[in-house]
């Protein structure tokens, strides 16, 4: 029996065990959602890099497909010091999950049943509903049933299918109409790092009309095993709402990290997303935004840093389904060692999406002879009154700049790190929330060196 067949059997056994135990007592709609998702996963299997399979042309997930992962059990011995992960700001809404399980002692108080059930009941009159997905399901919150799986379809993607099949807990964020949340919402996913453990974090974010919020999802690890994080996020953004998303990925050097984020935007809404990939052995991050009504605006930014044999695949896609919408994608990669960075950008202007403005940029710095960059900025245009551009550049750090720094007494490594950080600063600057930006800056500095 082949390794991947082994793995498939293991997934099936686990799913049936999960249905009997962990998932038992779930409402029927969720049981159905999980079961059909697992069916979709079994039919599709893990994607392969075979000829003609465009989305997986550059990323081979065989190491995941051929491994046997088991749903992570709570690690009772793990003691977690929150300090390194905390945001530098006085107030924060934080939900922490350790190996996929909610950790109350590391979280701020989650939304109560009443709050979950009614988005109108804000804590202190100005807060959002930041609660556990498991609670929202248990308390039969209509929004959970209505929206879970509405954007991330199990049919689209085997990893999304797997996440949905094993969906157990995660974040349920609801920013009611008109609510402006000044403090960041922090969804913290910590892996204790046990090898062969799998977690399937899920986040459902609803930002209703004219609301405003910042959500940071950070993925951290305590130890360096070959574990597997498979995250799915859905964000439904109402008319005039302003949602700022940030993902900070600092998985261990042996970890597999797959993440998919799907966003749907209504009239005049604004979404800004910044993803930062600093860890993992293999990471693949897909983000897509559907601009379904006129005047929607989205900015998808990302940066990725690779060394050793890391493989990072970032994909950003914007669907201009309505006229007068604006999108920009800016992804920057710094590749050292024998790492490989992949970017695939896409913008689709559907028929009738006049006055579309779509910009894409991908820039990669290659620091070492063994690094590889693949870039694929795509455009599909079916409307004539549009302004769409894309650009891509791969190259080395500017030799003059490097020399200039060295002439001021800065060592070669530090000079490179400085230039790399300068190169990335455009993306970091796109993070609007000061505390989140500071957190990301610190993480980048810690990873690249070159001084704080």
């Amino acid at each position, binding site marked *: 029996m082949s390794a991947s067949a082994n793995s498939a059997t293991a997934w099936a056994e686990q799913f049936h065990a999960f249905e009997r135990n962990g998932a038992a007592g779930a409402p029927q709609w969720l049981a159905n959602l999980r079961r059909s998702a697992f069916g979709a996963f079994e039919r599709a299997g893990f994607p392969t890099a075979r000829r*003609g399979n*465009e989305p997986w042309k550059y990323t081979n997930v065989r190491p995941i497909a051929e491994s046997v992962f088991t749903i992570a059990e709570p690690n009772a011995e793990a003691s977690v010091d929150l300090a390194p992960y905390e945001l530098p700001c006085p107030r924060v809404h934080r939900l922490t999950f350790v190996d996929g399980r909610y950790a109350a002692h590391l979280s701020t108080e989650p939304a109560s049943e009443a709050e979950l059930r009614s988005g109108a009941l804000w804590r202190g009159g100005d807060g959002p509903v930041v609660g556990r997905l498991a609670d929202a399901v248990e308390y039969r919150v209509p929004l959970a049933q209505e929206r879970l799986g509405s954007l991330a379809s199990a049919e689209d993607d085997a990893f999304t299918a797997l996440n949905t099949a094993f969906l157990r807990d995660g974040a349920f964020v609801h920013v009611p109409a008109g609510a402006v949340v000044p403090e960041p919402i922090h969804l913290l996913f910590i892996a204790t790092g046990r090898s062969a453990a799998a977690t399937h974090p899920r986040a459902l974010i609803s930002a209703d009309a004219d609301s405003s919020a910042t959500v940071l999802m950070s993925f951290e690890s305590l130890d360096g095993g070959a574990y597997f994080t498979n995250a799915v996020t859905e964000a439904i953004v109402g008319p005039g709402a302003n949602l700022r998303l940030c993902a900070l990925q600092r998985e261990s050097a042996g970890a597999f990290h797959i993440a998919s984020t799907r966003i749907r935007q209504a009239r005049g809404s604004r979404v800004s997303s910044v993803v930062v990939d600093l860890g993992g052995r293999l990471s693949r991050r897909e983000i897509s935004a559907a601009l379904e009504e006129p005047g929607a605006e989205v900015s998808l930014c990302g940066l990725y840093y690779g060394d050793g044999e890391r493989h990072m695949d970032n994909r950003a896609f914007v669907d201009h389904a309505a006229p007068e919408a604006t999108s920009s994608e800016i992804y920057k990669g710094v590749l050292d060692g024998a790492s490989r960075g992949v970017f695939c950008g896409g913008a689709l202007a559907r*028929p*009738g999406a*006049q006055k579309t403005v779509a910009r894409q940029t991908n820039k*990669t710095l*290659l*620091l*070492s*002879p*063994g*690094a*590889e*960059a*693949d*870039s*694929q*900025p*795509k*455009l*599909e*245009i*079916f*409307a*004539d*009154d*549009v*302004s*769409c*551009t*894309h*650009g*891509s*550049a*791969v*190259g*080395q750090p500017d030799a003059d700049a490097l020399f200039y720094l060295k002439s001021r007494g800065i060592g070669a490594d530090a000079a490179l790190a400085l230039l790399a950080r300068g190169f990335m600063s455009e993306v970091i600057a796109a993070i609007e929330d000061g505390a989140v930006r500071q957190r990301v800056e610190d993480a980048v500095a810690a990873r690249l060196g070159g001084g704080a």
Partner: protein
Amino acid sequence: MTTATNRAVRELAEQSYQYGWTTDVEEESVPPGLNEDIVRWISARKGEPEWLLEWRLRAFRHFMTLLDDARLPAWANVSHPPVDFQAIRYYAAPKAAAELSSLDEVDSEILRTYEKLGIPLEEQKRLSGVAVDAIFDSVSVMTTAKETLAKYGVIFSSVSAAVQEHPDLVRKYLGSVVPYSDNFYAALNAAVFSDGSFVYIPPGVRCPLELSTYFRINAQESGQFERTLIIADKGAYASYLEGCSAPMRDENQLHAAVVELVALDDAEIKYATIQNWYPGDENGKGGIYNFVTKRGKCAGARSRISWTQVETGSAITWKYPSVILQGDGSTGEFYSVALTKGRQQADTGTKMTHIGKNTSSRIISKGISAGRGNNTYRGLVKVLPNAENAVNYTQCDSLLIGDQCGAHTVPYIEAQNRSASVEHEASTTRVSEDQIFYCQQRGLTREAAQSVIVNGFVREVVKRLPLEFSVEADRLLEVNLEGTVG
């Protein structure tokens, strides 16, 4: 959109094809269908040596495997009903078409055909600095200026003749750039190719004439499967031009050509195409399927290969003239204008594979979509690990005329060497109202303004063509785009 623009767009979309007539000439052809006997028949008909027949048969078997496994290329952004490979006539030739050396021997109907197309086969036109190989359906009917070229040691003939006269050269290079196993249509071509042009420029020779091939599909149900092979030996230079047209027919006809270029040390080949195969009618009925594999190998140090194409015809175009940059310091270029209107679909671009050190490539692609046309640029720039100091610059711009068409860009960049500098820029725009008004304020009509702006959009590519062809290209774009102001 204003009514004036609407009208311009409609006229543009409905521009009719001017080369749609047929020539009444007695043809020798095989019955439709593809099998080993046909392959053997074609090879025998041409009196080919055993090795070539063997090569064809290997290609045929490979093709049949691909066909049986339904491994047709499916990645291109084009759609068409499945091609019935058994309904195609794989050989059609005007009777008595042994290669001729004097115009007197050419069927007068055929001569008239080329005259009508404006191709200089007549004696006095030879003075215009162009040597022409005329390919009518499956075979070469006439190659001009052979004597002039012979003085320089330049070989310019049909591939069939070269197989007889220069078998060593053909054997050495045929399939060396595009092996029969390269892709589905390359396999088909290798099995059934009937003719094509062959060029060899000896070391140090700058070919004094522009070499030109004119392809004409005339017969019904026939496909055209020509194969062109051009070798520029050390320090040699050649400029080669090809033009294509076909009659209007209701059924789709298949054109699956292969072009191989080889440039040795310090050699340079410029290859230009003006492709105006019949595009089908405004409803998408009929037209040529232009599924072509073109590739050049910069085998030698400091060699250069440059592709320039103006693609205005064909129902579907699927072609990626590419360069393998193997020699150190070699240069590859791709300049393209692709116009789609009516129901035309084009998926075209290039592959630049950087292998040697200090190689450079440049890609300029201009796509114009009008009517219900769909235009895709697809390109790969690949820098292999040992390709130190590779440089690429790519610019691909799309122009949309009307709101029923599509423009797509699918670039791939794969850089495996840190000293690489790869830059890609692309934009998609339409003709702006400000530009049109500015032209109108200076006395041009809307239609003329549009034509002027489109001509400006493609200028960077068209100016790369040799003079005779740039005039032809401008005229072709003008005919295709309403308005005559240039």
